[in-house]
């Protein structure tokens, strides 16, 4: 009973907030509604018994990703309305609707699948974070390490792209240019 109420509450609010995100012409409204929708999605994860995933959703998405967007917004002019000229919105909605039907069919495929067996069932008596850890650090150790390297690459790329004067290097300059740089300082 409570599960039904919670599911419908979370899903209706999430759909509404994400519609605001997609349709609003103000960046700040879009960002805040996106953050709120993500908080509600973590509620759905808690309903599904995926406690650790819900906490990760809260910390990484709502905490880190949205904070990053908020910081990036300082570079852009966030207060003014975005003017977008949409030439044929009916075509977009037709294409979007057709693809939506296709996607609903694709997402509904597990409903029709019959011979699906659990290859990694959760350990008996383990809480969700414990079971996740057991699977993640045994069966999925190599993808985990690759994901760590990917995050490192992304961090370096972000620093280089957003940092100032990262395209100049003292080692590739001539001696005169280096002395010029020192004089400037």
């Amino acid at each position: 009973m409570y599960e039904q109420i919670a599911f419908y509450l979370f899903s209706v609010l999430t759909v509404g907030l994400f519609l605001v995100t997609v349709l609003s012409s103000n960046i700040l409204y879009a960002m805040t509604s996106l953050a709120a929708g993500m908080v509600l999605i973590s509620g759905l994860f808690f309903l599904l018994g995926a406690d650790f995933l819900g906490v990760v959703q809260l910390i990484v998405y709502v905490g880190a990703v949205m904070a990053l967007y908020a910081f990036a917004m300082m570079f852009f002019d966030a207060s003014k309305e975005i003017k977008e000229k949409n030439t044929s919105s009916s075509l977009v909605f037709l294409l979007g609707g057709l693809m939506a039907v296709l996607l609903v069919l694709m997402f509904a495929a597990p409903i029709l699948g019959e011979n699906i067996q659990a290859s990694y069932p959760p350990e008996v008596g383990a809480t969700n974070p414990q079971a996740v850890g057991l699977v993640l650090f045994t069966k999925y150790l190599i993808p985990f390490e690759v994901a760590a390297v990917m995050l490192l690459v992304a961090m370096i790329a972000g620093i280089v792209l957003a940092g100032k004067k990262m395209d100049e290097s003292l080692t590739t300059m001539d001696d005169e240019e280096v002395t010029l740089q020192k004089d400037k300082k």
Partner: protein
Amino acid sequence: MIGLNHYLILSGLLFSIGLVGVLRRKNLLMLFFATEVMLNAANIAFAAASHFYGDLTGQMFAFFIVAVAASEVAVGLGLLIVLYKKQGTLDLDDLATMKG
């Protein structure tokens, strides 16, 4: 009773919302938001399948999707800042410089 179908339909709905956003938006930052919506929809589907089939693989996939989304945001926002410094706008119509 809430079953797998409910969650999958919700996930499909959210994915469609994100897709309409990607098709409709002309501002690059808004396109990023729509992408986040689509990634979250996929996460819901994975978590639901993981719960109703008693298999943790779905949750593992959702974790890796979160990692991919985080790195995408880091690199993508860096590129957006460079682009904004260079062009002064994030509108896709103004950025279309290759006239075919």
